[in-house]
């Protein structure tokens, strides 16, 4: 599969010019820009490539082993893929209105098993986005990988871009069908359920506010503090070591604790439902886990054309703290062309999760 990646720094126009140097007639552009340049970059790309569909999001970018906050990164797809892009508006209210259009696009795509993916970037209400998109792609073989926009300017609302315009309270997406090879998606957790981890039942929640009030009818913070053995005042600081997670079969879905209320309730970055089975997770040997992931990717995809990844902001901060992030992105780049974004949440197939890495690999 033919792909293009480019990056540029400076003002939006200059950065776009540099980032698109050598890019001709793409069928789809995916781009990443800092908050203050997103709108102009979107517009500039539309002007330069009027025939191309484009989606974009804000955030720290990773490109082939380097990272930057202020530059613009552009990824190009060409006519060896079939593409359908769009925007779902009002994701906080009724994104279901977009369903007819999405279903038409999926019908046009004619996806097969393991050759198609839906890449999405949203500003908020990730659970709604996942439900809507997943209901449409269910049974089609299309996988879902996405990120929540992170890097909004103070006091502003997060933005995404589609075909030259920026949107709040929206999700931009692109269905990509690879006509030359397979498309595989991967999810990686560096946190595991410990062998002594006990299951706890979420007995009281506020799903709208993403608050977990009680576990096993006791204040969540009390239960966490007792099992992990740290004072309640240190729980938020401990999120890099022991986040909470839901486990279904052998799969772990992580939730990051955002804040602890005086009554012992957790405000989280991901909704938890009543009766969810919650575990307090343990940090694994992340270097080994990363190596296993790279090995798995290498074994699963023979000739890697492109990797698009999403790393959670908490993973990014933790790896920075461990002085490991640069090593990590260089290792990812060793697999092939690699572009990534640091997100405020990750979407993978039918779930929105935190502190996770998700990626799509094109053969």
């Amino acid at each position, binding site marked *: 599969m033919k792909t293009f990646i480019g990056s540029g720094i400076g003002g939006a126009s200059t950065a776009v010019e540099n980032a698109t140097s050598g890019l001709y007639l793409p069928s789809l552009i995916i781009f990443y820009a800092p908050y203050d340049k997103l709108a102009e970059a979107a517009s500039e790309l539309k002007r330069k490539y009027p025939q191309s569909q484009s989606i974009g999001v804000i955030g720290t970018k990773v490109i082939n082993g380097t990272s930057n906050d202020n530059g613009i990164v552009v990824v190009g797809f060409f006519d060896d893929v079939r593409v359908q892009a769009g925007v779902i508006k*009002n994701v906080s*209210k*009724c*994104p*279901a*209105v*977009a*369903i*007819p*259009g999405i279903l038409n696009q999926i019908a046009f795509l004619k996806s097969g098993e393991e050759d198609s993916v839906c890449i999405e970037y949203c500003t908020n209400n990730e*659970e*709604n986005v996942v*439900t*809507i998109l*997943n*209901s449409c792609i269910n049974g089609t073989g299309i996988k879902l990988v996405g990120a929540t926009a992170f890097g909004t300017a103070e006091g502003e609302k997060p933005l995404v871009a589609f075909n030259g315009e920026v949107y709040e309270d929206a999700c931009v997406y692109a269905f990509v069908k690879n006509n030359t090879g397979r498309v595989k998606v991967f999810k990686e957790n560096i946190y595991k359920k410990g062998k002594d981890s006990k*299951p706890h*039942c979420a007995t009281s929640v506020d*799903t709208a506010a993403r608050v977990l009030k009680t576990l096993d009818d006791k204040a969540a913070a009390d239960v966490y503090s007792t099992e992990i053995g740290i004072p309640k005042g240190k729980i938020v600081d401990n999120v890099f070591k022991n986040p909470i997670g*839901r*486990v*279904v*079969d052998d799969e772990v879905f992580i939730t990051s604790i955002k804040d602890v209320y005086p009554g012992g309730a957790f405000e989280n970055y991901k*909704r938890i*439902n*009543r*009766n*969810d*089975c919650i575990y307090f997770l343990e940090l694994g040997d992340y270097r080994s886990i990363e190596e296993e992931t790279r090995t798995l990717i290498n074994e699963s995809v023979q000739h890697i054309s492109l990797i698009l990844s999403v790393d959670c902001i908490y993973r990014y901060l933790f790896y920075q703290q461990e002085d490991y992030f640069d090593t990590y992105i260089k290792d990812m780049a060793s697999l092939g062309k690699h572009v990534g974004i640091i997100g405020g949440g990750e979407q993978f197939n*039918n*779930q929105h999760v935190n502190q996770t890495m998700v990626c799509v690999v094109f053969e």
Partner: protein
Amino acid sequence: MFKKKDKTPQSSQEVVVKDKIADELFAIKYINQYIGEKKEELIDEEMTTISEISKVSDAYNISVEKSNAINADIEEVSKGFVHAGAVSENFNDVVEKVISVSDNAADAAVDLKRDSDRVAEQFEQMQQVYEDFNESIDEINAVTGNIITVANQTNLLALNASIEAARAGEQGKGFAVVAGEVTKLSFDIKELVAKVNVCMNRIQRSSRLLADSLEDANEALNGSKKQITKINGIIDGIRDSISGVSDSREEIQNVVSKCSEQIEGIKAEMTDYQSQFDFVVKLSEDMKRMLTKKSFMFEDISNMLEQVDPLVAQIEEKL
């Protein structure tokens, strides 16, 4: 017979309105259909949950049975140990008896040794006496030998005297010489006899001493015999006690062996019970995770349902 259906064509306004709210109407129908499908999935999931609950219930019942079996075995082991405790009491008695008997045996052994030492001393004396006695005998023999010699000489002299006497007739001078010799011989014989008497007295003395020694030795021997008899009695007592110990020991071994078998059985049952318990715990954990799986479905349903009101509001707005 057949009425024509009254097909009033839709007004253009109706069509416009329908077009305006087409997406919203489609979305509501879609949500309705989606929830219906999810409901079916949830029902399937409920059936799976019910099946899992049955498994948990069955597994739990098996665990209870095994627990009861283990309790029964523990009860048996407990009884065994009570019995072993009673036998141990007997064992203690027997051991104390053996210790007491052993102490007596030790004392008796000391006495026996002392008596034996006395016997040994006596026999030493006897030995000495006997040696003296032998010396005396030798002396007697030597003296007796001399007497014989003297006697022989006396006989010869007497013979010679006879011959001379016969010759001399009147001239018996020679006979006087002979007589003189015989007299000398008699002195010799007297001396010898005295010596023999002395020796004999000595012999008699020694014999008396020997007899005394023998008597003492006999006494000591009798004493030793009594001690030996006593010790034999004690040893018999020890044997009996040891026999009692052996019996008790055997009994205890039997009890312990039986208890060991039961404990092995309990261990095997506990391992089995632990596996069963782990299975129950796993089923219980699996069920909790199934609840999470169901909550994912509820989450999707909830996400869809939340949009109905805004959709209706949007329709109303457009209308």
